[in-house]
């Protein structure tokens, strides 16, 4: 459709900002994982610091969305698109927080526990990171079918999450001296599980943006 150049430019800026925020979140997750795997405290600190940039970008996106609504009076698809962008920014911000939580674990956990848990953590984080990427592709391409397919991958994360949870419980039962670190890992496990939930939210908003219908995926 043609027409409304200023609105089109601002919508394009909004989409670009979401993609930029998505890229930063993916990078934060990758770096957090790497810092954990290599027990790299310096890199972990960079992830924690970098989260401030993600937070600032969320506010920028919300401000832009508000400005477009106030000045352009968008309707129909444009309006749903703007609502969706603001909601996605909020979920991306939470995913950024989880990257920070993973990075923080580097300093809190002993080496042997990190080594033992990295495969599970890596599996969940990799699935989650790819889901973030693909969900944002679905958003930009307004592809509700793809969004639903992306959300289905949350099951993979949930399976690993459950296995790690059981594993941690039995470790803590057998070795009460690891209780403190075990709890730390339980939290980490939970954050990674939440990663999939946030991406599911993003996918639900993409479906809303495209169809105007609220759906519950993965319920």
């Amino acid at each position: 459709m043609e027409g409304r150049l200023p609105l089109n430019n601002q919508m394009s800026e909004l989409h670009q900002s979401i993609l930029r925020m998505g890229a930063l979140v993916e990078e934060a997750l990758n770096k957090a994982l790497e810092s954990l795997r290599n027990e790299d405290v310096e890199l972990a600190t960079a992830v924690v610091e970098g989260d401030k940039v993600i937070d600032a970008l969320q506010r920028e996106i919300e401000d832009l969305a508000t400005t477009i609504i106030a000045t352009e009076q968008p309707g129909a698809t444009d309006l749903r698109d703007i609502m969706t962008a603001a909601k996605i920014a909020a979920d991306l911000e939470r995913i950024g927080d989880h990257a920070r939580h993973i990075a923080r674990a580097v300093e809190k956990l002993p080496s042997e526990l990190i080594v033992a848990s990295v495969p599970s953590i890596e599996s969940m984080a990799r699935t989650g990171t790819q889901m973030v990427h693909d969900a944002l592709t679905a958003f930009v391409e307004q592809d509700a079918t793809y969004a639903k397919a992306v959300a289905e991958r949350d099951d993979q994360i949930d399976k690993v999450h459950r296995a790690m949870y059981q594993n941690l419980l039995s470790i803590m039962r057998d070795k009460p001296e690891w209780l403190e670190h075990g709890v730390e890992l339980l939290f980490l496990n939970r954050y990674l599980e939440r990663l999939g939930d946030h991406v599911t939210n993003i996918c639900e908003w993409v479906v809303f943006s495209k169809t105007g219908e609220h759906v519950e995926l993965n319920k």
Partner: protein
Amino acid sequence: MDSKTDTSEEFAGDSTEAGGSQDALKRAMAASTSATAAAPEDTDGGPVAVEIADLNFFYGDFHAVTDVSLRFRTNEVTALIGPSGCGKSTVLRTINRMNDLIPGTRADGRVLFNGKNVYDDDVDPVEIRRRIGMVFQKPNPFPKSIYDNITWGARINGYKGDYDELVENSLRRAALWDEVKDKLRQNALRLSGGQQQRLCIARTIAVEPEIILMDEPASALDPISTSKIEDLIFELKERFTIIIVTHNMQQAGRISDKTAFFMVNDKRSGYLVEWGKTRELFFNPKDERTEAYISGRFG
């Protein structure tokens, strides 16, 4: 005020009225069901006040409106929107036969007011226009006093009540009383544009219509006067059914319960694209032509 003629009783929609008109209503509703099957979402709201079924309208040879079917419900505001030339004002004016005043016009199809076709031979268009009032784009008070503007229609109808009371009530309901109560004998043309328009609304409601048609009632007014008219519409729908043509989409979004979107085809004839709840039409329209119009993208 009670000056009902035989004709007006034919139009009675009140369930306490004589059974004959109810039968007419039932027949009319049964006959018109299929014509509006394209709008299955229209199942809520009050009773149908006006139903347009398979309306085609001609100015001489020019086919100005094609196949419009649409319902208006009691105590709702319905906005008719669409680009210039889409026939929305023509459709509005068919409802109280205002188009009859233009020579060479012809309406095919039915406009059912409380179940009775206003185009039936036994219908008095003057009575129709009393029961379906109209407010125009440009305020058009009579060049008389504020008081006489309000009482004019009532005098013609042989109103036997208290005229002072009628003037005050009408002006209060049109949110104009406080501004003019001390100058009722002043010429209405000395009022501001926004006040003149509210006076025209007061004049319209003074004859106790059931339906008020508004043809871009705020398009000649500044934002403050526009806002007053919009507030007024919101209050008036408690008592009246309102059908409004507006070029201002945001206005339609603000004030209407239902919206009907019209377009013009390649033969310059207007047609209805989509209608339904305003929220749905503005947030999630079904037709891509509505989407383009609502988004302000006319490609």
